[in-house]
């Protein structure tokens, strides 16, 4: 006979599904600027904690030509509401600019630090992200 889920189990499940974080990038061209996009989505009744200084700290990859060691609110962070008219944001997107200096498949990886909250609790989390970027020679 199945046992009912305990409150602790339910709480743990709620936390495990409170957010997703992804990194996406198209292809790149050596010497030309490109942009990768980090996306945080809060789910299950949680919303992005806008007070928390969301940041992405990339792993150093010299050939990728990343402009900064830390990307945050001042770098074009965009928040989207959970629903029309909602004061809470459920999606945060952060552009990460790069200018590759080499060709081939480069990996942009790093750590996203953020916080999501629901009426009962806040979580402060980190997500390790990585996305491959195929860099080609510029066309002449």
């Amino acid at each position: 006979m199945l046992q009912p889920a305990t409150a602790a189990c339910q709480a743990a499940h709620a936390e495990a599904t409170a957010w997703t974080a992804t990194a996406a990038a198209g292809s790149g061209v050596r010497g030309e600027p490109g942009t990768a996009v980090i996306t945080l989505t809060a789910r299950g009744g949680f919303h992005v904690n806008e007070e928390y200084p969301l940041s992405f700290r990339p792993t150093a990859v010299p050939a990728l030509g990343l402009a900064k060691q830390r990307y945050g609110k001042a770098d074009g962070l965009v928040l989207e509401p959970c629903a029309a008219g909602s004061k809470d944001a459920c999606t945060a997107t952060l552009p990460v600019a790069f200018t590759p200096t080499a060709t081939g498949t480069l990996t942009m990886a790093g750590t996203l630090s953020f916080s999501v909250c629901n009426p009962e609790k806040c979580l402060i989390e980190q997500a390790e992200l990585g996305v491959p970027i195929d860099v080609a020679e510029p066309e002449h």
Partner: protein
Amino acid sequence: MEGMRTLLRSLSLAASLLASVAAAEPQPGTPAPAFTLNDLDGKAVSLANAKGKVVVLEWFNPSCPFVQRAHTKGSLAGMAKKETADGVVWLAINSGAPGREGTGVEVNRAAQKEYGLPHTVLLDESGSVGKEYGATNTPNMFVIDAKGTLVYRGAIDNSPDGEGRSPESGTLVNYVEQALEDVAAGRAVRTPSTKPYGCSVKYGS
């Protein structure tokens, strides 16, 4: 024209009402509201017991990750121990309603031990003291001078990650430490009010 005058009178009245609601929360420069709360042993503790001393009130929730970080890596780590050694009275207040996150004697007692807090935690389960002070977050800090006047209300510091790693101006400022320095020096508090950050206070309603 008469309609316009009526509209303006209505708007003026509405503005006054809003101002009076906002002013219900004690502002720096006004007397700090009196209160009596029980500590974790059930003993009554009154703000009046600290008459003639500088007091720090810290709104507390041991399960809030901002409080946890502040006490382990951030601006609150070891701070109460240092300040109480200098004669400051430090009171932590938990205004969470029974059953909500971070409430109950045992979880607060465990946090008191884990963080090495030299002071007690007072339980405000009805939330009445928290609401009277207008406490909105954990941590939310208040500094009261020896005359009983509120001189600071707001955040512990300017780094809303709770760890001191992301100061908004680039330089970490511990607003409570700064206020205590100003009070000790007999000068006006440089930054009397800031917006607190952290988890919401878990009031019952």
